[in-house]
């Protein structure tokens, strides 16, 4: 994933599918936030009753913190205005959410670090931010729920299953040896680069009525049967991972490490993509959440790499769409995982730093976990998120059971009928089948160049 409009998270994602670029970006950002505000207001009102449980949380005096403002900057599917508003309400200081696309965000963290307080970082971005010295280590002791964070992140395992490290797994990017260290530390320490807050396992979305059979393997995306009806994600660092999963699935190549390809592997992958493009396999490539929804809903494609809330958005339009369960088999397939977390910028100190820790702690206290669960994303501390979900929501989203009743999205719009089961099954079924993570390769510059060859071919 990793693109700006991935999460408008509304049931009506049409319209604002604007992508980057000067004025355009500013305009669409405004539009987004205005709408999110409206819908968010309803959600906040609805959740007000529940929020009392986490009142009295701040340990610094209200008088001193009311002038503090935290600027949380990042991609829209991770830095959500409704969540910031709720945090501000619970914590008593001001929280401003600012949305940028992935590459604009990392560029801003690096070139204007002082204009950001909380950086929204993916694992690979945490690695970069640490390397550039723009973030400070998070003192693990100060994170109240740290011990309850799933070991996927803190220890690189879950339920006795080792989390694969193709690409940059959150665990791999999680620790540094000292608060000001610039290199990642392999192994648990007292200092974290970022605090995971939202993640998921991505795969392929398809129209079951038009594809005609159940899709469980990535190779279906490059099946000539779907010539001119398939699409792939055009964010090079992620698109190439999806492509690699396809080619591996089709038995065309075996990668040493998909997440960090050699030049030869990059060449093979991009040449194969160019070949497929010339044969007319891809109807389009997409870069934003909305585009992927439009492609599927408008009948332009029947199968494409996709994000979970986008599949839901297509279904809300009463168009059948399935998120393929691509469980690992024969050392192939598997989901592509991603995780966004929060990093503390280096310039934070004193009361503002205290407030930032309060903010981090608030994130893991459950309200946010409940919110993101309602559009199919996971919390690193499901035990607290559970308190903010109805038993029906918990059963549907986390346990993979048939929904006992109608399931609503975060803004209260009905999303899934009673009896529906989540594609891919339970939380454990899905995350244990993650086979690689979003990444930034050592050969990123070369890969980028080859990806542009594919684009211009």
């Amino acid at each position, binding site marked *: 994933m990793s693109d700006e409009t991935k999460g408008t998270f509304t049931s009506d994602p049409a319209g604002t*599918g*604007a*992508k*980057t*670029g000067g*004025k*355009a970006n500013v*305009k*669409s950002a405004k539009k987004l936030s205005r709408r999110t505000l409206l819908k968010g207001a309803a959600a906040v009102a609805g959740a007000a009753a529940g929020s009392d449980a986490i009142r009295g949380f701040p340990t610094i005096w209200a008088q001193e913190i009311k002038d503090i403002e935290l600027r949380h900057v990042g991609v829209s599917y991770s830095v959500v205005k409704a969540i910031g508003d709720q945090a501000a309400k619970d914590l008593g200081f001001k929280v401003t959410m600012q949305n940028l696309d*992935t*590459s604009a965000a*990392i*560029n801003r963290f*690096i070139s204007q670090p002082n204009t950001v307080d909380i950086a929204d970082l993916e694992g690979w971005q945490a690695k*970069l931010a640490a*390397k*550039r010295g723009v973030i400070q280590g998070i003192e693990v002791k100060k994170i109240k729920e740290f011990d309850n964070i799933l070991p996927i992140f803190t220890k690189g395992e879950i339920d006795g299953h080792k989390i694969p490290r193709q690409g940059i797994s959150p665990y791999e990017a999680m620790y540094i040896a000292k608060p000001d260290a610039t290199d990642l530390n392999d192994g648990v320490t007292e200092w974290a680069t970022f605090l995971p807050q939202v993640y998921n396992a991505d795969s392929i979305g398809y129209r079951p009525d038009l594809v005609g059979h159940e899709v469980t393997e990535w190779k279906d995306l490059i099946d000539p049967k779907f010539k*001119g009806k398939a*699409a792939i994600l*055009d964010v*090079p*660092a992620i698109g190439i991972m999806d492509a690699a999963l396809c080619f591996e699935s089709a038995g065309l190549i075996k990668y040493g490490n998909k997440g960090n390809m050699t030049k030869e592997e990059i060449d093979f992958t991009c040449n194969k993509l160019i070949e497929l*493009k010339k044969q007319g396999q*891809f*109807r*389009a*490539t*997409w*870069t934003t959440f909305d*585009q992927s929804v*439009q492609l599927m809903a*408008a*009948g*332009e494609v029947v199968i494409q790499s996709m994000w979970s809330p986008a599949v839901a958005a297509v279904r809300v339009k009463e168009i059948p769409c399935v998120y393929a369960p691509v469980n690992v088999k024969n050392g192939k397939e598997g989901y592509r995982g991603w995780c966004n977390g929060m990093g503390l910028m280096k310039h934070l100190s004193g009361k503002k730093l205290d407030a930032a820790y309060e903010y981090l702690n608030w994130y893991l206290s459950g309200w946010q976990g409940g919110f993101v669960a309602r559009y199919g994303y996971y919390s690193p501390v499901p035990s607290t998120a559970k308190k903010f979900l109805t038993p029906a929501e918990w059963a549907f989203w986390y346990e993979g059971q048939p929904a006992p009743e109608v399931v609503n999205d975060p803004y209260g719009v009905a999303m899934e009928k009673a009896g529906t089961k989540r594609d891919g099954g339970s939380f454990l079924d899905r995350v244990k089948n993650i086979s690689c993570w979003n990444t*930034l390769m*050592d050969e*990123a*510059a070369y*890969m*980028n*160049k080859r*990806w*542009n*060859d594919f*684009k*211009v071919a």
Partner: protein
Amino acid sequence: MQPSQTPSRVNFAGWLYVSPLVLVLVPFFVAPILVVLAASFFATDGFGGLTPGFTLASYVEVLHSALTLKLYLATIKFTVLTWIFTLIIGFFVAYFLVFHVRNQLLAIGLFLLCTVPFWTSNIIRMISWIPLLGKEGLINQVLLAMGVIRQPLEILLFSDLAVVIAYVHQLTIFMIVPIFNSMARIDKKLIEAAIDAGASRLDIMRLIVVPMSKSGIALGTIFVVSIVMGDFFVVKVMSGGGSASVVSAFYEDVGVLQYPTAAASAVLLTLVLVAIVSLILRTVDIRQEITR
């Protein structure tokens, strides 16, 4: 310049005249471009770190890459196609407004009508083509219903055609305005005289209207060429990601923090554009035409 003024007063007044422009251009144009220029000579660790210094490595890489050539060819293809269509449409719209609409008020009214699409953002204008051109879009549905085609035409959307359509739609106004402006200056008596002297419509067009609209055509060309060559967004959306442009390629470079190569590409593009614009200015002396 008035010859009666003393040189120092001329200088002072001259500087005063240009100062607002200088105040805008220096911080918002000259300074950033110098930063980009400097960055293009720096070395990088590949992860966003820049080492001040002087290396031509980025230029060597950009100039040695077959990709650069392909990108320029793709971009120039879009530029030329867009230019041709905006020029033809823009010229005739302006011609109609100036020479066929007798009522000046009506002409101005129609001229303003041409700007109506500009009341919404260019993103909206571009995206609105999608429901029209798509597989299940209006055009395909009509053609299918009429039995003209059996399968929906895929070439309408997510293709080079779609890119050119969007550009032409967005940029024709940049041709209409300057051409309208220069045509409006043509003395109607001149045309009447030509008719009286037995000139055909083609002769009038060829010998009077076109030569006297040159400055407008040149200005419009500069607008269209520089906008298309500097764009990546229309290409990205309307080609469905199927095409790239010079700018989209170095935007991706910035995305993976390859600042020096992105900067070198940007400098190269600036040089190419400067060359094109000066070529246009060399062909048409806009300053002379405007102050005519």
